């Protein structure tokens, strides 16, 4: 590649916007400090964490065409693994995090092994049913707060990083988001990623070519489950709190919205989606309250139609508007 072409690729509007976005997210702790606004940092950290979850969903939804309506279960399992260990005086992150990742991956294996035998709407329903199972299990765990959830202490990485430090925690989440995005980019153009995308395009053809499609999809689900679990670990640590709400079907739906809104099957799509989702939520609420006291509660009445408009008229989501092509 000549230098000129490389420069041409780096300085497209979309690359600049993406870079600006990442710089903004990285600098958020400093911005929040300068503004004396701690809330904005907390929102920013949650955006980063949900973006990791949305990127992980995009790996199977965007590249695999597998519409999982139970992705929040991985977040819940990751979070609850941390919370339950923490409540039992096992506070070391070196133990909590691997256990949580393992649990989420194991759950992914179980769900995928069964749900991947179905197609279309049945796949959606089965993944939803499995996620609801975990949700009600969480609600029933009275020892760990039941419906009300549970305050936990944050994971400890003695001497390395203090997760109670909001800025340090944000940077950790940001670094993990970058790692997730990096992996997703490599994954999309790897031999594995091409098989997965080929199966999305034409499953029977891929089988006829000699690819055991089921195995490839299963492994993709394991990977997505692990990254989903990671976001759950981070979410539990962000608020020092776990509750069944983090894995309700509404959250699974939100994740699909983030992916579709941002741009399905595009690496940075879910990041745009997560950002737009939270920015809209955070601005519609006070915006509507300003119009009329109490209207803020009904922000979804505006958000819903907005999504319909985007689904109808902006195919490919925000990424398409920025000129990203479906990879």
């Amino acid at each position, binding site marked *: 590649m000549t230098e000129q072409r490389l420069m041409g690729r780096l300085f497209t509007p979309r690359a600049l916007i993406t870079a600006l976005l990442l710089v903004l997210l990285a600098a958020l702790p400093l911005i929040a400090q300068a503004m004396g606004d701690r809330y904005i940092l907390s929102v920013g950290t949650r955006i980063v964490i949900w973006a990791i979850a949305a990127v992980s969903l995009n790996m199977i939804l965007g590249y695999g065409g597998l519409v999982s309506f139970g992705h929040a279960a991985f977040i819940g399992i990751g979070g609850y693994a941390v919370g339950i260990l923490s409540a039992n005086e096992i506070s070391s992150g070196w133990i909590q995090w691997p256990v949580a990742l393992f649990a989420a991956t194991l759950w992914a294996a179980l769900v995928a092994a069964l749900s991947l035998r179905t197609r279309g709407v049945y796949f959606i329903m089965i993944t939803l049913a499995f996620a609801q199972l975990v949700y009600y299990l969480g609600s029933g765990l009275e020892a760990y707060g039941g419906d009300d959830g549970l305050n936990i202490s944050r994971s400890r990485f003695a001497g390395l990083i203090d997760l109670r430090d909001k800025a340090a925690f944000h940077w950790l989440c940001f670094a993990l988001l970058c790692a997730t995005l990096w992996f997703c980019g490599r994954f999309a153009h*790897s031999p594995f990623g*091409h098989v997965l995308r080929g199966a999305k395009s*034409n499953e029977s053809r*891929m089988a*006829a*070519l*000699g690819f055991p499609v089921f195995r490839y999809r299963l492994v993709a689900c394991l990977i997505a489950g692990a990254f989903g679990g990671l976001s759950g670990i981070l979410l539990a640590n962000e608020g020092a709190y776990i509750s069944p709400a983090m894995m309700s079907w509404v959250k699974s739906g939100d994740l699909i919205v983030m992916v579709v809104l941002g741009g399905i099957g595009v690496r940075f799509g879910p990041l745009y989606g997560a950002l737009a989702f939270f920015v809209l939520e955070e601005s519609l609420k006070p915006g509507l309250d300003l119009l009329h006291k109490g209207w803020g509660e009904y922000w979804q009445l505006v958000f819903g139609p907005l999504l319909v408009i985007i689904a109808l008229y902006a195919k490919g989501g925000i990424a398409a508007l920025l000129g990203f092509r479906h990879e």
Partner: protein
Amino acid sequence: MSELLATDRLVKRFGGLLATDNVSIDVQHGEIHALIGPNGAGKTTLVSQLTGGLAPDAGTIRFLGRDITRLPTHARVRLGLARSFQITSVLRDFSALENVALAQQAHRGHSFRFLADVRRDTNRTEAARRGLAAVGLDARASTRASALSHGEQRQLEIAMALGGEPRLLLLDEPMAGMGPEESQRMVALLRGLKQRCGMLLIEHDMEAVFALADRITVLVYGRAIFTGTPDEIRRHPEVRQAYLGEES
């Protein structure tokens, strides 16, 4: 000649319908064996059993001397049994080149590699380019498969089927929907590939069948009523009545 594929009294029932009725056919190395018969004769049902899409109720399928009756599709493909589809089946969202590259990738062991970049793999690209050239599609390498003409898509299918260096190619109506010119090009293409792999050809275009086939089997109501050379088929009274008479 050596035997590539042989079925032994294959049976498939759909409820009360006997779709495959004790069919025993074989394909030899270097041979094009055509399967003809009226619509509903059970040609596609037979092919589906050969590829592993349908499980037979009785009988066996041997490929390269090995019993493959119960092997799943992908395992059969690995052994060298490739197919093209009756309805054009390519990866529409991928370039012609990538279609062939994936077909070849299927035979290079597993693809559980998550970090390698296929775009920088020049060996992969070159091999795919050669595969496209073999069917005369090299000029269309970067065109999306969905943007290719019907005839070109059928050519691409052949290139994909050849991607795994198959020993036997199952061709399910490769001329379907083609104009006379495209048909002729396909006939020439298939004839040129004969020494690379044996073929089981299902085709309605009689001109193409008689131009290509070394042997022809006539399938009627699930039964193989006759197998012979094109000349024998032309002369056979039962075949004329059952099939050729109906067509003309």
